[in-house]
């Protein structure tokens, strides 16, 4: 292969959907490629003007896509940069261009002629799928889909998703009912048959829609609808179908795409079964549900240790199904909480009833419900205030043995010790409520370096097990202490702006300059931590009780001006970086390595780079606003 073709093949090989092609296919495509240069400000495609003659792949530079509307003028729809495509819709979709495409900077594009693209569409299923589906999706979905594709192509596990057909695993007996029956009757049929969905048929006996548990909950119960109304008022229609011959992963894509859990399976035009997301999860053998059940059934630490090892598999599975990072961490948090609760129950049996009511709290990432692959132990005990010195003594004795047992059990289940000693087995972090209050007020009053560090760690606490009211009371106290604490908040603000994200992302990453992780990007320090720290600052400013970053953003919307304006974007940025990191760590764990936070920017696709760049810009912008607000206290 000569250098001209080699250069094209190398570039396209990293760009979706061309990354799905093998080298001979890429080489064939390369022979239909031209290179064009457009100075900044060039109108490449004009809305309503001539249709595109090529599929454009941006080699360098960037373009702005806009649409002119009668009342709003020119509205920007999207920016695209290196590795992104444009011109597809009008290349095949009609006789004129749907949007304006103007270069936002000097831009070099590969142009792929219509015949070459046509041939690809005719011969390559993956390419067709890409264009038909993801091209129409909004930007963020495109990114998720791409990551999802990548994780599918890099992992050889779970091949069954790619080999089993929908027909093979779908439930064969589908319950149907006429769509004229009432909501109550439909619910009755579902209960009777112990099913989560019933397919409804019209007067001709053809499937017209489906009613699921979700419809009953969302459209009937939550809205107080009369259950004697015809069920067709609340059914979901049209029915999303899947061909019995489709591969399972195609069904998964459909479910993700339409955000549904049930697919009607058809064969030769006739209804032949129903596929639920549960069927797909069972395919893996380790669905979150089955693990949760397994945990409940265990009676020993050894048993729990065995189950907890499956959690890695769950993350992988959820990632492959294209779940958002926030959904994945929710599942993981739920599973880990159950594990901890079960361990505590075992400990309570072993050590007998505690002498005082207690609350087991988690903090750090566990407190924020943002754990993925298990991190260190971060836990503590708040127990009720002892009435007598004798009670204090017996509490100390009891909880020290109890907490040490839990600590060791967690280690056995694969949760390593906290190197900083933030564990309930440390007497300092196993205290009566009044002492916790003392800690908190002291940290706020005298924000020394260690006090600030303790604050950001412990203030993300939440109750996991035991007497929840103890944690609530401590939270009340904390909120009351935070009012008008400008100096303390100034320290927290300093922490939130300390790590500036790499801004020159697209051109040169700001990466580690030396050492083992030279040329790597620390996603935790540069990406996640700044968002977590900023959002925590906002939560403390407004005394919000939530501890997870996304919940804090939701709670502060409308209450905190920065969050009101940038909350949505911050949440998306957070999701994106979290998913990138999760994917990276999952790769490491499946290869038997210790997960870390160092990502080589070169391994990111152009789309990921672009999204990461936007996320970093956003973080930096919000940090600048914090600096402006706290300018007298920033050092």
């Amino acid at each position: 292969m000569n250098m001209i073709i080699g250069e094209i093949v190398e570039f396209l090989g990293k760009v979706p959907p061309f990354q799905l092609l093998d080298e001979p296919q890429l080489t064939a495509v390369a022979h239909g490629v031209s290179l064009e240069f457009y100075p900044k400000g060039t109108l490449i495609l004009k809305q309503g003007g001539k249709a595109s003659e090529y599929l454009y792949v941006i080699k360098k530079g960037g373009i702005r896509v806009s649409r002119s509307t009668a009342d709003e003028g020119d509205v920007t729809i999207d920016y695209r940069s290196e590795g992104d495509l444009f011109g597809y819709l009008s290349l095949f979709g009609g006789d004129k261009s749907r949007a304006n495409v103007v270069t936002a900077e000097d831009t070099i594009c590969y142009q792929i002629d219509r015949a070459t693209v046509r041939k690809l569409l005719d011969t390559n299923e993956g390419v067709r799928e890409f264009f038909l589906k993801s091209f129409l999706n909004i930007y963020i979905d495109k990114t998720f889909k791409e990551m999802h594709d990548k994780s599918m192509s890099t992992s050889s596990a779970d091949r069954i998703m790619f080999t089993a057909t929908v027909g093979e695993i779908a439930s064969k007996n589908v319950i149907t009912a006429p769509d004229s029956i009432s909501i109550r009757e439909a619910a009755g049929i579902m209960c009777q048959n112990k099913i989560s969905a019933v397919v409804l048929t019209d007067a001709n006996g053809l499937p017209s829609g489906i009613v699921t548990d979700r419809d009953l909950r969302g459209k009937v119960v939550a809205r107080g609808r009369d259950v004697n109304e015809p069920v067709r008022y609340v059914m979901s229609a049209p029915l999303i179908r899947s061909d019995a011959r489709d591969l399972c992963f195609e069904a998964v894509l459909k479910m993700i795409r339409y955000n549904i859990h049930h697919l009607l399976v058809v064969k030769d035009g006739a209804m032949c079964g129903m596929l639920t997301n549960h069927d797909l999860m069972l395919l893996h053998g380790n669905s979150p549900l089955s693990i949760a059940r397994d945990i409940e059934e265990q009676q020993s630490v050894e048993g729990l240790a065995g189950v907890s090892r499956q959690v890695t598999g769950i993350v992988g599975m959820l990632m492959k199904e294209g779940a958002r990072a926030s959904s994945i961490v929710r599942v993981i948090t739920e599973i880990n909480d159950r594990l901890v609760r079960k361990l505590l129950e075992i400990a309570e049996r072993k050590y007998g009833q505690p002498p005082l009511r207690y609350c087991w709290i988690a903090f750090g990432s566990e407190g924020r419900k943002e754990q993925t692959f298990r991190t260190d132990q971060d836990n503590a005990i708040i127990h009720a205030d002892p009435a007598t010195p004798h009670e204090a003594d017996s509490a100390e004795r009891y909880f020290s043995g109890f907490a040490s047992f839990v600590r060791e059990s967690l280690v056995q289940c694969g949760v390593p010790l906290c190197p900083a000693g933030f564990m309930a087995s440390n007497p300092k972090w196993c205290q009566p409520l009044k002492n916790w209050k003392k800690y908190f007020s002291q940290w706020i009053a005298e924000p020394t370096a260690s006090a600030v560090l303790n604050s950001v760690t412990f203030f993300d606490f939440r109750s996991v097990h035991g007497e929840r009211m103890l944690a609530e009371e401590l939270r009340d106290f904390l909120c009351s202490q935070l009012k008008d604490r400008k100096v303390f908040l100034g320290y927290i603000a300093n922490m939130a702006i300390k790590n500036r994200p790499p801004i020159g992302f697209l051109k040169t990453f700001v990466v580690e300059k030396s050492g083992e992780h030279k040329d790597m990007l620390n996603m935790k320090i540069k990406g996640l931590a700044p968002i977590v720290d900023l959002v925590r600052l906002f939560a403390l400013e407004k005394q919000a009780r939530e501890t997870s970053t996304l919940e804090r953003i939701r709670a502060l919307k409308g209450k905190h001006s920065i969050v009101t304006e940038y909350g949505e974007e911050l949440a998306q940025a957070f999701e994106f970086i979290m998913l990138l990191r999760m994917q990276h760590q999952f790769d490491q764990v499946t290869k038997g390595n210790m997960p870390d936070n160092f990502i080589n920017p070169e391994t990111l696709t152009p789309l990921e780079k672009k999204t990461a760049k936007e996320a970093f810009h956003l973080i930096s912008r919000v940090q600048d606003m914090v600096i402006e607000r706290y300018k007298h206290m920033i050092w």
Partner: protein
Amino acid sequence: MVKGLFDIFRSAELLTVTIDPDAPISESRFVVLDTELTGLDQRRDSLISIGALRMAGSKIELGTYFDRMINPERVMNPKSVVIHGVMPSEVELEPPLKPILGEFLSYCKDSVLVGHCIDVDLFYLNKELRALLGRELGYPVVDTYSLYEWLTGRGVLRPQKASGGASTALFAIADDLGIPAASAHTALGDAYTTAQVFQRFLSMLRREEITTIGGLLRIGNPAGGGTRALPAGQMSNF
């Protein structure tokens, strides 16, 4: 040698093309070429390889490149081996010149030829063409080095402080325009770099309101350029 404006060779021995000077650049076809030589001695040295790319207006058609090595049937000059990294043994396996030149002529059909210091390439090409086919390339010619001098003269482009002659200037110019110099010093690689430089120049010329082929040929005339850092004495002979 290519003379001025529309003085296209009329001789029957030459391959000529009639070009309408008012034709827009954007609708014209170009062949951007580069050759590698055994050395720069006009009597003894000859072609080793020809690389070329077609352009339709400013669009480079990457899939239809021309990339051929030639058996020069002569001993190679060891110095050029150092420059181009083409070993004599490699070249000897390639087919002889005559059919390749024929192919190249039809590749260039109806196009304006473009090259960086193209008169050197043309000298050797025409020398071989005369000897083997009794003809010469009579197509209109644009020299990117002349364009470069014109653009720097107008203050559109920053002059390069390149040392080592006009051909190394190509890479300095490319570098300044952010064009990566991919596998420099192969004929096709250099033609690719030249084509990308030419592409940028065309976009600059559009802003200078040079939009017709006539205007382009006027300022891109190889003889029209300023002082050449290339061995000028050798050029004067033809």
